[in-house]
Structure formats: structure tokens, C-alpha cells
């Protein structure tokens, strides 16, 4: 099931809600997939990250200050 993503696998974005402090950098870097609610916390579009946005998604994960944003492999059966 879930494990470290490989280039062939689809990945999706997950927020560790306890770690997330609402910095909002993810929404700035990846507005296609992440918007902020009225209090500045991310609302992530569900489903696999499209290939053309993967680099941006990886970057958003890297710069999240509390390391709350993660990429997880999507189980094959559920891949979009």
C-alpha cells in the first residue's frame, strides 16, 4: 500500500493537521491544488497530483515550515 513514492506511482498531498500552523506557503506555491480557508488553513484538492504539478508539489512539501505537508503514494486501485 502506502510507501515512499517512486516516479511511476501517483502521489497525493496530505496535511498533518496537528503540525499545520497555517503559514499558507503551500497555497502560494501550489494554488492549482491548495486554497486557504477563512482562517488561513489549507484545503487540498483530493486525488492524485497531476504529473505537470509534481515538481511544484515537491517544492511545497520541502518548504512547509512545520513539515506538515506530505506526499503519499496513492494505492494503485485508487489512482486517478
Amino acid at each position, binding site marked *: 500500500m502506502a510507501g515512499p513514492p517512486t516516479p511511476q506511482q501517483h502521489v497525493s498531498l496530505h496535511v498533518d493537521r*496537528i503540525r*499545520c500552523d497555517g503559514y499558507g506557503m503551500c497555497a502560494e506555491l501550489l494554488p492549482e491544488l491548495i486554497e486557504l*480557508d477563512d482562517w488561513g*488553513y489549507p484545503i487540498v484538492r483530493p486525488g492524485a497530483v497531476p504529473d505537470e504539478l509534481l515538481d511544484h508539489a515537491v517544492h511545497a512539501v520541502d518548504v512547509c515550515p512545520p513539515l506538515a505537508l506530505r506526499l503519499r503514494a496513492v494505492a494503485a486501485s485508487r489512482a486517478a
Partner: protein
Amino acid sequence: MMKAPVQRLLGGPPIAAGMESFAEHLARLGPAPRGNAAMISTLEASGLLGRGGAAFPVGRKWRAVAERSDARAVVLVNGAEGEPLSAKDRTLMTARPHLVLDGALLAAQSVGAEEVVLYVGSAHSAARAALSRAMAERSSTGEGLATPSVRLVDAPARYVAGEETAAVHFVNEADARPTSRPPRPFERGVGGQPTLVQNVETLAHAALIARFGDGWYRRAGRGELRGTTLLTTTAAGRSVVVEVELGTTVAEVAAGIGESRESAHAVLVGGYFGGWLPIDRAWSLGLDPHELRGAGRALGCGVVSFLPNDVCGVRATARIMEYMAGQSAAQCGPCVFGLRAIADATSRIATGLGTSDDLERIGRWVGQLAGRGACRHPDGAVGFLYSAMTVFGDEFAGHARSRTCSRPRALGRAA
């Protein structure tokens, strides 16, 4: 004429008489068989679903822990019962502690656990006293609890303390706030071991299924889902715990506690994590997870609460939303800020201080919070509010636009 109710968990001496002793328990039901792998298959065949609220298949849960246990799993017996409208778990623990202990030991033997933790709400003193006495009785009769070891832990009196990761967190680190998943408790829980977190009623059912078999269990029930369930019913401020066959209608439950269709205008099914139904929609509905799902509701922890005619549904809803916002574990932004904002806006509408903007905002927020907490506390709260806005839609609009309430006892203590 109404069929006599099937009493299984509540069978035996009157519940009001208090704790059934170990001697009485053994004389009435005989000793519980030891748990083993076959027991898990029996549970799967019974179709028993968890009674803590999530209705997860019990056999599958036990199997998931057994597969990982290496004989070092932990069974966490969940008697936290933090839901304000629910009293069925404490009633069961108080009157039938040996049935709960039987189920806990059976689970420990079946999944391969060396430790059992009884996690009981600190406010439920009679329940804790009964379980303590039951453990002492077993020690003195040579039915000791040395293997597995059994200990009693006081669960903080908070709504989310009974959530399974919160329960594990509290036993491990004295912090009853939910944790991020993964890992889930069945993977890594108490002491880092695979942990079976199971509600006390569920374990009591398992204790009877172990004695009498899955075929016996399935003889009760009206629909596809079989067995009996405990309910906490509330009407006119009075709370009664009953046992009914799954599929029993709301009308029958009402009749059993002397409630009539004419005296209530809505029913809260499933407690604060559940939702409202108009009385006419609810009346002939069977209390069965499948049938309730068809009506967009769930049995949850088994709360069935009748909202009296003179009590305003918007006010009752606002009061519960206020409670839910206050019970956030205050870890996740969407829950901390979102539930607070929703509760405030709902209160403004309920008290005639709200506007159509408030109504528009809570309509938007209700759709944004689900799935955005470490636990499902925000999901439950907005699901409940969504049901209210559906069932009391006209009343919400009336409060917000013309600041009127059609119910005389607007501030009445409802639900």
C-alpha cells in the same frame, strides 16, 4: 400487541439493582469459553459491528490485531463515554461488569494480548467501582487476572478522550488528545504494540456470542443486520437505557418510554456526532445501520433523543455546536477556528442576533471542515449542523431573516 423485547446484555436481574456479582453471573450464563482464532471467525460470521460509534466490523478488527500481535498486543476497553446524551456504556459497566470483563479477556486471548486496559470515564464513578469490585471478585475466586494483566485507567471527562487515538495517547503519555494517523492503534498503540480499542458494549456482545454462537446472535434483529443494541433514549428531560433488536422502529422505542408522536417535532439519532430527523420521517424508521444510512443518518453510539414540540431546534442545535466547539482538542486549525466561528454564528442566529450573512457563512463552512482534522471531531460537528440546517431549514431562515422563533420555549433544555 407488541412483541416482548429481546434482552441479552440487560437480561438477568433488574438493572436498577446494580452490579451482578461474579457468582450470579456464572450461575446465569456459565463460564465464558477461552478466546482463540476460531472465535474471530465466529465474530465475523455474527456480523457484529462496533457499538462505540463507528460501527466497524468487529471480527475484522480483531483479525487485524491478531495478525500483528506476536502475542504482545494490548486490548483497550473503551468505557470513556464522553457523549453527553449517552449513558448506555456506564449503565452496562455498572450493572454487568463481568460481561464486559469476559469480553475483554476473550478479546485478549483471541488476538494474543498480554495486557488489558480498562479506560473508563472519570465521571462514571459507579461504573469504575463495579469494575474494580468485579476484578477483586475474580482474584479472590482464583479466576485471577494475572495473564493478561488488567488495569483500570481513568479517562478524562472530555468529548474527544474516547476517540481511539486519544485513548491510546492518554494511556501512553497522559495526554487525551488525538494523534495523527498513521499509525493506527491496530498497528501501533499502547506501549507501541498493536492495540485493539473496543467499546464496552461491543465486548459484552462478544462475551455472549462466545457462549452461544453466531447463529444465536443472528436470531435477533429485524433486517439484514442482526442482533440487539443498547440505546440511550431521552424524552422530556428523562434518560432511559434500553436494549432493542436492530431494526426496531423509532415508534416502538417511543412507545417503550411513553413518548408520543404528537409531543415531539424532531429526533436526534446518534448523539452529537449524529443528526436530526423530522419526527414524521423518523417515526417508522428502523434503528438499523443500513436503514439509517438510507435516511442519511447513523446509529452512532445509540442515542435516540426526542425534541419536545415547544423547544426550538435552532436553539438546541446552537447549544450543541457551542459544546462541540468547546470540546475541540485545540490541535488542528480548521477545528479550533472553524468550529468556534460556526458555533458563534449559529448562536447569533439562534438568539435573533444573526443575519443572512451568518447563514450564508455557516452554509459554506459546513462544507469545508470535514476531513480536515487529525480526528473526526470536526466531521461529526459539521455533519450534525448540516442535518440541523436540512431539518430546521425554515426555522434557521426565520431566525436569520425575520428574527422570529415559532417555538415558545426557545431557551428550553433540549436534547
